[in-house]
């Protein structure tokens, strides 16, 4: 099981879809899980479904791949209701749900909502719902809280069903053979900062194994003359065009430098392998882009990132 986490806007869902596609290309069955909302996943996987329909695992178009990809959206509210029903509180829970009372009490227990979602994920993992499970996880700040919830609850609820649930989930998270977290960023300062902070927090406070880090939207390095060579090269051209050529080069050089700097910072801060994904020119990423990115990652992935769960 792999949990993908990263700051909002860096392409977590893109990575999740790319890994799903790559695994399916190797003949594996894949279950992609999202929490609360599917976001761009249906579009990336080529799935055309009503939002409500995704509460059950929905199979994405095969696209000629030997394996299969299904998408399911987990709802913390549904998980809470199921939990209460399992403990003989179903009828009462439904009546009180209108008054929002049950919710607030349950949520008053720190991280109960998160624990219930993780519990549902654990259930699916235990049941062998697919050879590879990919969880499109929360944005980084929330990822830490999300993954910390079981430990916090195991402590505060010292006995009873919550405690047992928390302990079981902790066992899953802490087992590198069963679970790892893949952090995502773009090669920019704030996303990289957050990724590094999240990595340290997860290792120290949750004890979960970190897989490779993924960096999205990378631009290919382009050869460009430096300032002096540029000035020489545009001599004699229409001044407006010359200025545009020089400014454009300066811009690209600077952005390339920033990108390289951030990749280096990331490598220096975290001794983890990096999965590098190129920027795609499309105004909106779709299954074709996902296929291209998955193919580009083949070598990087061959190193065994996506083996079926033992």
């Amino acid at each position, binding site marked *: 099981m792999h949990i993908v986490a990263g*700051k*909002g*806007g860096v392409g977590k869902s893109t990575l999740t879809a790319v890994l799903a596609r790559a695994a399916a290309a190797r003949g594996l069955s894949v279950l992609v899980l999202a929490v609360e909302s599917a976001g761009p996943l249906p579009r990336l996987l080529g799935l055309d479904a009503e939002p409500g329909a995704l509460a059950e695992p929905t199979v994405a178009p095969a696209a000629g791949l030997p394996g299969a990809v299904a998408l399911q959206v987990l709802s913390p509210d549904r998980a809470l209701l199921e939990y*209460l029903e399992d*403990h*003989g*509180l179903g009828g*009462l829970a439904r009546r*009180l749900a209108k*008054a*929002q*009372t*049950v919710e*607030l*009490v*349950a*949520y*008053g*227990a*720190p991280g*109960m909502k998160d624990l219930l979602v993780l519990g549902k994920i654990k259930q699916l993992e235990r049941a062998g719902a697919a050879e590879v499970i990919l969880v499109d996880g929360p*944005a980084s*700040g929330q990822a830490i*809280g999300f993954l910390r919830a079981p430990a916090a609850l195991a402590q*505060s*609820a*010292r006995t*009873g069903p919550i*405690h047992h649930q928390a302990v079981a989930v902790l066992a899953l998270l802490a087992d590198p053979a069963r679970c790892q977290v893949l952090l995502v960023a773009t090669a*920019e*300062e*704030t996303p990289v900062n957050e990724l590094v902070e999240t990595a340290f927090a997860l290792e120290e406070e949750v004890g979960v194994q970190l897989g490779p880090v993924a960096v999205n939207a990378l631009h290919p390095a*382009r*050869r*460009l*003359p430096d300032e002096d*060579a*540029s000035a*020489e*090269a*545009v001599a004699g*051209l*229409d001044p*407006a*065009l*010359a*200025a*545009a*050529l020089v*400014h*454009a*080069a300066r*811009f*690209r050089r*600077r*952005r390339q430098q*920033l990108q390289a700097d951030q990749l280096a910072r990331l490598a220096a801060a975290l001794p983890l392998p990096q999965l590098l994904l190129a920027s795609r*020119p499309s*105004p*909106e990423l779709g299954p074709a882009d996902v296929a291209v990115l998955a193919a580009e990652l083949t070598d990087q992935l061959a190193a065994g990132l996506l083996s079926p769960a033992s």
Partner: protein
Amino acid sequence: MTDPSLDALLQRCATVACLGAGGVGKTTVAAALAVRAAQLGRRAAVVTIDPARRLADALGAGALGNAPRLVAGDWPGELWAVMLDTKATFDELVARHAADADQAARILANRFYRNVSEALAGTQEYMAMEKLYELQEEHGFDLVVVDTPPSRHALDFLRAPNQLGRLLDHRAYRLLTARGVGAAKVVNRAAQSFVRLAARAVGAEVLDDAVAFFAAFDGMEHGFRARELRARHALEGPGAAFVLVAGPRRASLEEADWLADRLGEQGISVGVLVVNRVQPSFAGGSPEALAELLAAPGPPARQELAANLAELRAAAELEAHELARLSGRRCAGGLVLRAPLFADDVHELAALERLAAALE
């Protein structure tokens, strides 16, 4: 130069709320708007939620926190900055409304309160609104620019306070503390059986804490609700403007359109859409001239420059096309501004000034 309509808006408003999904640069735009207001001579404050460290340092010289700090700068007005501390703001609210120090202390020490003050969805939004209100009422700022939490659904800023408000609602409170008037007996019996069963589900300790919290909170819910209503009024009057921030990608623009629709349903019109980090087009010289350069053989350096310019222009054009297609539809009543992607990221005051000047 800054769009004059934006300047006019910054001159006349008392509140500007920046909404949008995470990762689009909302905090940076909010800070830039506040800088512009200060340049226009206003006494402005910006409430940031989770600013990048360097930006926080630029605004607060390493000490940016829950109390407003004056930002040193060369402008006719003033710029103050706040980094919202959700928990501290909630604690201050409790202290403000408590009958005495003892009641406040009981609540602040309560485990259920401590969890609710951090974990319950919507608390951060509630506290952002409270901070906005506090800055206007007690610090007398001309304009407060509020960055909003990067919620999945940016509308939570407007709706979420009701969620916390429901927590403090009379009905839930009565049920949990097994008190009530009128149908007291019935309520009590239902409440007692609920309490017993709920204890089995979530643990007796959690429930005890919840009941203790509500008992301690007794009498304060009115004060909270009244203040919340006044804070919401500040966001509903003519002196309030809503700025949507989006990225230039289709998904982001569509989300902004959707948000504008939802706001419209609540009778709120979006004043400004800022499309942030737009690819610069490097205009200059005719397209034919560039095409000629590319077609004809030339020194490698020149060809590299030409290929680079062509690629960047193509990317900018693709984006501009998307922008034209989508942004006109919903935000027709409002202003649509673009902020360019700079060669360097925006982390310092000078960069914020540059961004403010480039909003057109």
